[in-house]
């Protein structure tokens, strides 16, 4: 079964450029502005969208995304609300893949079967759930695959060659290589090591490999995008939302701030292999 994600990566491969994968927090800084940001992403140049499901205890996130999640929760965001945003987005965009990213507990409480049914209905293409390693595949990964939703796994610098096949076994859509040991928003320590790691993963799988954590500028995107099939940018976008606010409220700059950075990064991925 090919999914929107498969089709998008195949099309970009034909164009010989990496995908620009953008992460924003659903409902940040408030529900309507969050929707406007989401809706603006494809036009600005995002090829794949990761939509953050806010969680009270984001253990793998740095300060920028922690604050984005807090703003979304303070605005009344819920998992039902996140699915509603995807549904709204899908009224106008049938092709841009959306991957929901977050932590397991809200999904567990929503109910796995009900969540998968509603996510499929809303037009969700994939899931990244940070605290579900392969050892817990029966919780959500296997049911998701059955429901036709891609389960995208994170591989990290600590995932060695012996473990890599375990991590890749039930992965679909793409593989997300976390460029460093650390939380979201920190800086990449060694670009060379990232390239090597991508090659190492590609020796084990035919899936596209996207690299995330620590990519901030168009130059980063161009540089990392030479090797990778996609680059993921999140903290800079969420940080831009935060910086655009006036006393915690959205301003007319908020949507534009995100759009401008995405447009710039889109230039980066387009010159990656020229």
């Amino acid at each position, binding site marked *: 079964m090919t999914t929107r994600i498969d089709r998008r990566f195949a099309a970009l491969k034909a164009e010989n450029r990496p995908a620009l994968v953008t992460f924003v927090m659903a409902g940040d800084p408030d529900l309507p502005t969050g929707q406007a940001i989401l809706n603006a992403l494809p036009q600005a140049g995002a090829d794949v969208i990761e939509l953050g499901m806010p*969680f*009270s*205890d*984001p*253990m*793998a*996130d*740095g300060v920028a995304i*922690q604050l984005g999640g807090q703003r979304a*929760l303070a605005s009344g965001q*819920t*998992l*039902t609300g996140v699915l509603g945003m995807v549904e709204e987005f899908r009224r106008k965009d049938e092709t841009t893949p959306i991957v929901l990213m977050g*932590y*397991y*507990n*809200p*999904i*567990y*409480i*929503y109910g796995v079967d009900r969540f998968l049914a509603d996510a499929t209905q809303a037009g969700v293409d994939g899931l990244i759930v*940070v*605290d*579900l*390693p*392969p*050892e*817990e595949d029966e919780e959500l990964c296997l049911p998701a695959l059955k429901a036709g939703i891609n389960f995208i*796994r*994170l*591989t*990290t*610098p*600590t*995932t*060695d060659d012996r*473990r890599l096949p375990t*991590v890749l076994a039930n992965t679909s859509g793409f593989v997300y290589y*976390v460029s460093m*040991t*650390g*939380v979201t928003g*920190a800086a990449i320590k060694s670009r060379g090591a990232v390239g090597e790691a991508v090659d190492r993963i590609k020796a084990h799988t035919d899936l596209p490999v996207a690299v995330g954590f620590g990519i901030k500028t168009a130059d980063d995107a161009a540089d990392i995008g030479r090797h990778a099939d996609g680059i993921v940018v999140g903290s800079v976008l969420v940080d831009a939302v935060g910086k655009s606010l006036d006393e915690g409220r959205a301003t007319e700059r908020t949507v534009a701030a995100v759009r401008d950075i995405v447009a710039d990064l889109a230039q980066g991925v387009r010159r990656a292999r020229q």
Partner: protein
Amino acid sequence: MDGINSLRNGPDEHGRFGIYGGRFVAETLMPLILDLERHYRAAKTDPAYQAELQNLATHYTGRPSPLYFAERLTQHLGGAKVWLKREELNHTGSHKINNCLGQILLAKRMGKTRVIAETGAGQHGVATATVCAKFDLPCTIFMGATDVERQAPNVLRMKMLGAEVRPVTAGAGTLKDAMNEALRDWVTNVESTYYLIGTAAGPHPYPEMVRDFQSVIGTELKAQFQEAEGRLPDAVVACVGGGSNAIGTFHAFLDDADVALYGAEAGGHGIDVENGHAASMTGGRPGVLHGNRTYLLQDADGQILEGHSISAGLDYPGVGPEHSWLHDTQRVTYVPITDKEALEAFQLLTRTEGIIPALESAHGLAQVMKLAPTLDKDQSVVLCLSGRGDKDVESVGKYLGLLNS
């Protein structure tokens, strides 16, 4: 070995106690906890490791801790005999040292060069800073900013022992937030760092490992009581934060059906007050946080609540997974104890026995105060007195001042 029907066999190879437990961690940490498990299995059967631990327990901690018959307290309550398992007499003043010694030896074996820990009351932080001083490892302690304030004496102790104390301002600045921040540090410093979790919770193998290190409490207690009374106690009580002193006390008795087991959770302002307590089992429902599935305080959308307790060490919205399972199977009865009841218990023990208990342990004592009068005079209740109250003297004083004015 325990039989197949024993309640002492958990966890299974997936780290589960029934549906609880597991390994819900980011991929970056997964290879680390698998490695930790391998090292722990090896250490467990290594006579040299066991001998070193035993030697430290005797000469450094001061084990065995006494089992003390609290005569005046018994008279005051007018029912069953009340006994105290005196973990507060351990070096550093609580049961936390039992676990810290076991884990620091493991960290050494694994070649780790830095230790991190989370702490609520600061007792685990102090115990960690202590073993790090002794074994010459740098350590960083994450502590919620609220707790830094209400447990100031322990913050000073940690600093004097050479630890770096990092106040965590996220959320309500309590134990849950400290644990998030410790996990963020661990995920960043995977090569060098050993995460010394302070309670029987977190991803497998921590709940099992911490339980094993704390089980010395119940094992000693059982033998001491046998020696004193020639039989088993009728009831055993412990307070439950993450659940390490409680599981360590209960584990030896799980298969003794005649021994009633009680865990005292933090009932805060009352179990009916939304977000006003930290009684995860009596007032929460199963969910996934900090690496394990367990009972959690959470809202309808699966967002974790901060909870509240007068006691920093019990102010945590979750509980170790083995307790969740013992709650479901009803082998252990978990009861909420309010702040007010704990304060009364704190004063009672101080005045009748001359022993100032930790506010955490005072929750267990409050359950004993309810239970003992309902039992016969020839029956016996044992409380795990998990820690001493020096750290709480100032904040209790403040509370009592407020209550009087």
